[in-house]
């Protein structure tokens, strides 16, 4: 029996419909606006192309941060190697002081390192992690085997929204805070 929680919030009430099948959930996502409800977000245990298509998601821009990181790394690697070599500008083993052949290795490794750091920064920035606010309107079944469609409605409409979800074959979780 899904529980309810007490609380107050301005006008919007949140109800989550939980579905076992992502095609069903995608259909619900497409139908909800017609019913006059707003889709807030959809939780899923695995990334689902069907759902992401239904939500009309644009590709993520995280790659730009990765690329910028990589470019910074490329130049930093060479810069570090060249700088340190020129501080001791005496020939060692007959190799030139600034030798690009071995410095390519340093440049390459730094490129990867900084690109990965850019990747992680992108991840944290774009997903705004760590953030625990999202857990407020969240059902633990969403990480198991259910797809949770969180929809917003006006104050008295929770029951009609819940009925809509149940008619589509899902379980319901009503948030009243």
């Amino acid at each position, binding site marked *: 029996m899904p529980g309810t929680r007490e609380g107050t919030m301005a006008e919007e009430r949140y109800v989550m419909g939980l579905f076992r099948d*992502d095609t069903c959930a995608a259909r619900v996502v497409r139908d909800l606006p017609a019913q006059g409800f707003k889709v807030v*977000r*959809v*939780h*899923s*245990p*695995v*990334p*689902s*192309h069907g*759902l*992401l298509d239904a*939500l009309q*998601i644009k590709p*993520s821009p*995280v*790659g730009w941060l*990765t690329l910028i990181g990589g470019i910074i790394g490329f130049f930093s*690697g060479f810069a*570090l*190697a060249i*700088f*340190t*070599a020129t*501080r*001791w500008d005496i020939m*060692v*083993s007959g*190799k030139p002081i600034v*030798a690009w052949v*071995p*410095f390519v*290795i*340093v440049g*390459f*490794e*730094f490129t*990867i*390192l900084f*690109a*990965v750091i850019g*990747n*992680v920064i*992108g*991840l944290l920035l*774009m*997903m705004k*992690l*760590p*953030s*625990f606010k*999202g*857990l407020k309107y*969240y059902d*633990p*079944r*969403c*990480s*198991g*085997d259910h797809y949770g469609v969180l929809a917003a409605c006006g104050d008295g409409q929770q029951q009609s929204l819940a009925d809509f979800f149940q008619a589509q074959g899902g379980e319901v979780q009503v948030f009243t805070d």
Partner: protein
Amino acid sequence: MSLTFAKIDQTVLDTLKPATRGYWVVIALLIMGILTGGACWVYQIFTGIGVGGQNIPVAWGTYLINFVFWVGIAHSGTLISAILHLFRAGWRNPIARAAETMTVFAVCTAGLYPFIHLGRVWMVYYMLPLPNQRTLWPNFQSPLMFDVVAISTYLTVSSLFWYTGMLPDLAVIRDRATGTRKKIFTYLSLGWTGAHEQWRHYVRVYLFFAALATPLVISVHSVVSWDFALGVVPGWHTTIFAPYFVAGAIHSGLAMVVTLMIPLRIIFNYKDIITDRVLEQVAKTIILTGLIVGFAYGTEIFIAWYSRNPVEMETFRWRIFGEQAFGFWIMVACNVAIPMLFFFKAIRTSVPWLLVISICVNIGMWFERYVIIAGSVAHDFLPSAWGTYRPTLIEFGIMLGSFSLFFFLFVLFVKHMPSVSMTEMKETVHARHQGGDHG
């Protein structure tokens, strides 16, 4: 029995239940092994690097052999989790998490060895590019500095990749846990909710991780091989080393994956997840890497003969027929000949054979590093400079410590964290239901 999301979750979460007595016995034994190694190392720090067997002419002994061995093992973890992700090979999903874990802990273990074989450990900071009054900087033209850069990059990238991959799974545990455990995993999972906005970025980030880790894997073991190939010693100075070492690393790492997976799936009841077919795929890949390694052995010997260079020819003659030839023959038998048994389906689908052959490959790959590292310098240019190398008890103690450390970290991990990626397994099941070709 077909897998469902719920069954996957349940199987993996069952492994996190409080440990049995047997587990603690294993942990205790491994800690004793680590302490032995630690004691040997402390003894070496106080007495001097001479307590090891390395000397003139063989200045690099088991410390380097083990370093290369552990870095090598790390590589196939990244192969499985990153490279096979790019190739959309679904059979990687059940073992990806354990393989990534193996990578991180193997790099950690390997990373101890530069400290150990430095002797005067407190001077390790010389290798870091830190400003100082005399403007002394590390020489980035040195292969040892390439190592510092490459291994630290690899450790950082692997750890970040491993942790990022675990985020959805940590959320699963958080949602099922109670009390302190729930709190810990809430923080560890960074508030992951599986919302579509999060997945949108996550999928892309993971793809970039895989795409960046792939060239990294190849470059790191190439850099390790250049510790040897950039010198002029016969048996070391040869252009094939970089791809040869990378292939060898993957060979030994895949064997270690099999060695770890077989007990894991028995103890944790993973037979429906890490199926026989998955192990068979790993075995087939071992055939490929074994052939590459065998090809490299043959090429080196052929080119040594073709070159008509008396030093090269003598190096390889001694390697194959000399006093230490047992290393060479163990290497060839265990790395090339025995894995060819996997051509027979009966053998590659039989768990006992898989275990035995994978252990053989690990032994063979250890001896390959022995033959290359200790063997080449023992018998190089001038006959007056030829010598022998025999490892000492201290070295064996430290080796025992490193193996214990690796297994200790791994065993600790699998009991407290998800050793199979629930999310990726669910993706496999999801894709199967859709009947399409999903990642």
